């Protein structure tokens, strides 16, 4: 009897391993070997040999040094400047997108007449957020015509003027708000999957939690901060990571990699940039996770 059980367990382990095997083979072929080669190429001078093969001459970290000192990007800016602007825009957009999609999910979760059609529209960014589509819609002539006729982005400037004149908000805050408002159409196309993640999270919170909170005398504000947010903490982390990766996928750094490799045939430099790119993603991710820990979205268990 005991022998049979042992056999069954090993058998199951083998079967399970067979299920992951395709992914594991893919990992080695399409991920591990490429990433290993990327690091290798970034440390070498890469040239194409006579028979189409690749010839490497070890050059240490000179590719990286060149990348940061002598090489320029397509718009003739140095890399450090590109990285700074990209990181700043990602860090400012990240919380906006996450908060905005949480907001959308909360509205989509409220019961009101016409909710069906509103939900259809709220999840449209999954389709409309494809980079193929946003690349064209963001600067189409039709949009420019409409905006020049409507006096800019629905009077974002005018709104900023009113805020400056009649409230006590400092100018920097108003400027920031104006930029966000002007950017709203672009930000909203990036919310599709995150709204979905948040709605899934909201739907999975048992109504009993809310009932208890109400009986205890909590108001809506308390319920949101003391019940909803803590119960959503995992979902928030997931949404934040997803947003960060998504923003990086569409950043201009990716285009520069392509440009170096295929337009300028500097494979070594392109690979070095790829490594910098991956490093940047991982470092920013750690910073964001650390921040989430500080604000207690991630709690130690």
């Amino acid at each position, binding site marked *: 009897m005991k022998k049979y059980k042992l056999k069954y367990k090993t058998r199951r382990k083998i079967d*399970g391993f067979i299920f992951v095997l395709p992914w594991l083979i893919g990992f080695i072929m*399409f991920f591990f070997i490429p990433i290993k080669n990327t690091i290798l190429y970034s440390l070498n001078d890469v040239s194409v040999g006579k028979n189409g093969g690749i010839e490497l001459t070890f050059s240490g970290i000179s590719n990286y040094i060149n990348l940061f000192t002598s090489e320029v990007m397509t718009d003739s800016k140095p890399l450090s400047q590109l990285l700074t602007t990209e990181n700043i825009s990602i860090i400012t957009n990240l919380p906006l997108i996450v908060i905005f999609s949480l907001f959308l999910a909360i509205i989509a979760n409220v019961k009101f007449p016409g909710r069906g059609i509103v939900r259809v529209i709220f999840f449209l960014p*999954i389709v409309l957020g494809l980079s193929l589509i946003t690349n064209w819609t963001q600067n189409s002539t039709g949009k420019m015509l409409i905006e020049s006729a409507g006096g800019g982005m629905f009077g974002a400037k005018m709104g900023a003027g009113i805020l400056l004149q009649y409230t006590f908000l400092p100018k920097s805050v108003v400027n920031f708000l104006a930029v966000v408002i002007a950017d709203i159409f672009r930000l909203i196309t990036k919310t599709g999957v995150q709204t979905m993640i948040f709605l899934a999270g909201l*739907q999975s919170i048992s109504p009993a939690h809310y009932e208890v909170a109400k009986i205890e005398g909590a108001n809506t504000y308390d319920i949101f901060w003391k019940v909803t947010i803590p119960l959503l903490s995992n979902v928030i982390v997931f949404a934040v990571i997803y947003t960060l990766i998504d923003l990086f996928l569409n950043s201009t750094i990716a285009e520069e990699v392509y440009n170096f490799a295929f337009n300028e045939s500097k494979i070594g430099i392109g690979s070095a940039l790829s490594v910098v790119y991956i490093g940047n993603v991982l470092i920013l991710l750690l910073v964001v996770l650390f921040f989430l820990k500080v604000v207690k979205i991630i709690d130690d268990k």
Partner: protein
Amino acid sequence: MTISKKAMKLISTVFFGTLVISICFAILYPVLTLLPMAFTDLRELGRPNSIWLPSVFGVNSFEFVFRSVMRGDATIMLKSLAYAASICFIQVFMSAMAGYALARVNFTGRNLIFFLVIFTFLVPRQSLLITQYLNFKHFDVFGLFHLILGHDIDLINKPVTLYLLAIFGFSVNQSLFVFIFRQFFLGMPKELEEASLIDGAGFYRTYFKIMFPNALPTILTVGILSFVWAYGDIYYTNYFNTDGPYFGVIIDKTFKDANNWYINNQARQWFDTATTNNLAFEALKQSSILTFLVPLLIIYFFVQRKIIENLDRAGIVG
């Protein structure tokens, strides 16, 4: 008292309604801006007074898209839909298997593999473009092809490359799908599986007869994401099979700025458009995006309700 309460309710309803409508508008706005030019008669483009409504309604820009971009061949659309559907099918099938094993089978190295799944999701795919490209250019599986054929094979610009990526788990965002399936199967009751095992079903039968069919909410969620991303993907398709029948890639290539003159000229020949402006190019670009979107939107409308109703069971939450 009651009046003020009623007034409060009215105000909050109006406020909420306005909010919802403005958000809906903000989401739809990019598409709405495409409509006026796309539905203007090509010969009447550029009239200063027409902004939101076409001055002369016409669909000849769509006719042009059909004749020029699709080269008079409607099957291009069907082909790219079929491509997206098959990639979607492969992705769901393969990621569900991997996700199930990672959630339910306690084999050696499971945690390491799960960590690798997350790690592959974190590394942006463009950063591996160069080496993946070279890898496919000189494709070889652990030296096997060299051993048998004596040379490696060139997989660039062959459709099989894209299917290989999907089968082995590295098509668009596939690690994310593995992750979602893992979360789903983790939350599934153990009793279901045990009962089936006690009844004498083996590992594979349990999975394909009990576990996989029960994952329907996740299959739908992952399926729609995978379909939309595969249909809209111009990254893998463009680099690894650039001449393939993918509508997105074709549009992307046709409407490069360098083609501006060519397209405008063609429009002039076929539809006798004005020689004074080059708006035909823009109008055609916008109508081709709309054409591209139509099948996607139709499918989305059919599937979205089922997905949203079952979201809490789809395993995204974990």
